[in-house]
């Protein structure tokens, strides 16, 4: 792994405001800095509401397009600044550089379009290799699907949840992206299907030599698949480092609590740690002080 030169993705002091009502808004991401090098796999963990999904979407350029969504800070792909970039530049990044695997396979496929066409759309013009149909079938099989020829003619409602998630993976890799952002890719699936889809994701990323950002609330999922990890809480990155080191020697109390809650669930199932509201606020203040 090369560590020299500019990283593939460099995020600095990312700050995202989302509207919550006609006049109210919330700071969903307060201060996030992270970097992903070529071929590297990075995990983002945190509870729901920690801002991890919004961070992932900001990186993939998929925040709501409303003018009231405010993104500040810096997101650079290969040194190219994307915060405040024109829509055309983002279209290009989305069509070639970054792919996204979404959380809910039931709602992220267009119900009135055939699977084959939905995958075909994702292949950018310059990257077709073996004729359009061949490419589509190739990516469908790469995502671990079988009978792809027949499958391409089907509509989403005719597929199971696990199959649909694989189709979403096929769509995300069809552009052969430099970076894949996977947001809770298995949360909506049955436990048995989860593991198989994760394995597929693992294999495809390895085969295409793509960088990966894996976003999950489930430390176990992230632990097995990533080189480095960022722990997010209340819109801030509270801890980061090599995955093993962070999980073995967590420094931040939130990471410790997160790990304890996993253990308490898996081992004795007695207690579920959660963090009191008062602590949240004080951490947020501390983070802010550190950032400025």
């Amino acid at each position, binding site marked *: 792994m090369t560590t020299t030169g500019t990283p593939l993705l460099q995020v600095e002091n990312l700050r995202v405001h989302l509207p919550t*009502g006609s006049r*109210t808004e919330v700071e969903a991401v307060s201060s996030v800095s992270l970097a992903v090098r070529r071929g590297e796999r990075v995990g983002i963990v945190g509870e729901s509401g920690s801002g991890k999904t919004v961070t992932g979407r900001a990186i993939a350029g998929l925040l*709501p397009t409303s003018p009231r969504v405010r993104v500040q800070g810096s997101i650079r792909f290969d040194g190219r600044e994307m915060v405040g970039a024109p829509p055309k530049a983002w279209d290009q990044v989305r069509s070639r550089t970054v792919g996204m695997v979404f959380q809910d396979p039931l709602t992220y496929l267009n119900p009135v379009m055939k699977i084959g066409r939905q995958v075909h759309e994702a292949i950018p013009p310059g990257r077709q290799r073996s004729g359009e149909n061949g490419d589509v079938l190739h990516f469908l099989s790469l995502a671990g699907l079988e009978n792809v020829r027949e499958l391409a003619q089907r509509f989403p409602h005719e597929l199971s949840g696990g199959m649909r998630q694989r189709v979403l993976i096929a769509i995300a890799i069809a552009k052969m992206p430099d970076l894949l952002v996977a947001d809770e890719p298995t949360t909506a699936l049955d436990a048995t299907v989860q593991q198989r889809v994760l394995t597929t994701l693992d294999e495809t990323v390895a085969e295409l030599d793509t960088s990966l950002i894996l976003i999950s609330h489930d430390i176990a999922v992230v632990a097995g698949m990533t080189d480095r990890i960022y722990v997010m809480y*209340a819109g801030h990155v509270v801890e980061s480092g090599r995955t093993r080191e962070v999980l073995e020697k967590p420094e931040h109390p939130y990471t410790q609590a997160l790990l304890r809650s996993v253990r308490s669930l898996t081992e004795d199932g007695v207690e579920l740690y959660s963090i009191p509201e008062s602590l949240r606020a004080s951490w947020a203040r501390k983070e802010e002080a550190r950032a400025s």
Partner: protein
Amino acid sequence: MTLDSSEKLGAARTPDGDGTGPGGAADAAAPPPAPRRETAAGIFFRKPLAVFFLAVLAGMVLIALLGPVFGGDPVATGNPSMQPPSSEHLLGTDHLGRDYLARVLHGGRTSLFVGFSVAALCMTLGVVIGSLAGFYGGIIDIVLVKIIEFFQAIPGLVLALVAAAILGANVMVIIAILALTMWTGVARIMRAEAARIAQLGYVESSRSAGFPRWRILASDVLPNAMPPVIVTTTMTVGTAILVESGLAYLGIGDANRPTWGSLLNDAQPYLNSAWWLALFPGLCIFLVVLSVNLLGDALNDALNPTIGRVK
């Protein structure tokens, strides 16, 4: 449906019936609730247009109630006939020399009465049937839904026209016919709301605590289902006034109680010479219906706050 979607539902709609959850994208990362939430009244009264048309509607209702007292005698014929609007007769006079302002004011009385009565009847009928179906479920639900579907499927407007033509001539009969053909909108919404609320945790817990069903219905379900019901009912007022004036324009209605619609019916032969006879009653209908519809829209925005368009 998966567990996930039911969670989303729960997040988008808090038990007090107005959602604060931002939809779609932000949902998965549900940010902590906004520190200060606007009240429904606050959202409503911030819209100048909504306030303006609320005032227009209130003014029209007030004029319809009090107007005839000040507006003069609608049947006095002493004036010169077919006079265009002037300072003496603000809206002119008709072919019999009657003051048109007085006639329009009187017409408003019946039109508004019909509109509000029909809406009130629709709301009563819809709330009763919808809440029974949605809250109790089971066989009651199946039967009531069949009834609702039937009333939706019949060509209501055409039948209302025929029924009014055959039975007509009485304001009360027309109100009853219109309510019968228009109540299903409220009923469907009420049913969906009642079914949704009956599933919520706090209703289930009061049920398991042994409260009688009717009390849960009255104290938990009905109050929380009101916002969308009120919006739909508001819109019903406008539709009822439009349909009533249409019927009156066709000559169906109480000949002794002229409404805006029947004034238009009388005005048509004089379209060539007396434009004001056709202009003002229609303008009144238009203003009232527009106010009601705008009010409905504004209420909808105020009572069901959503993130709006974020994608």
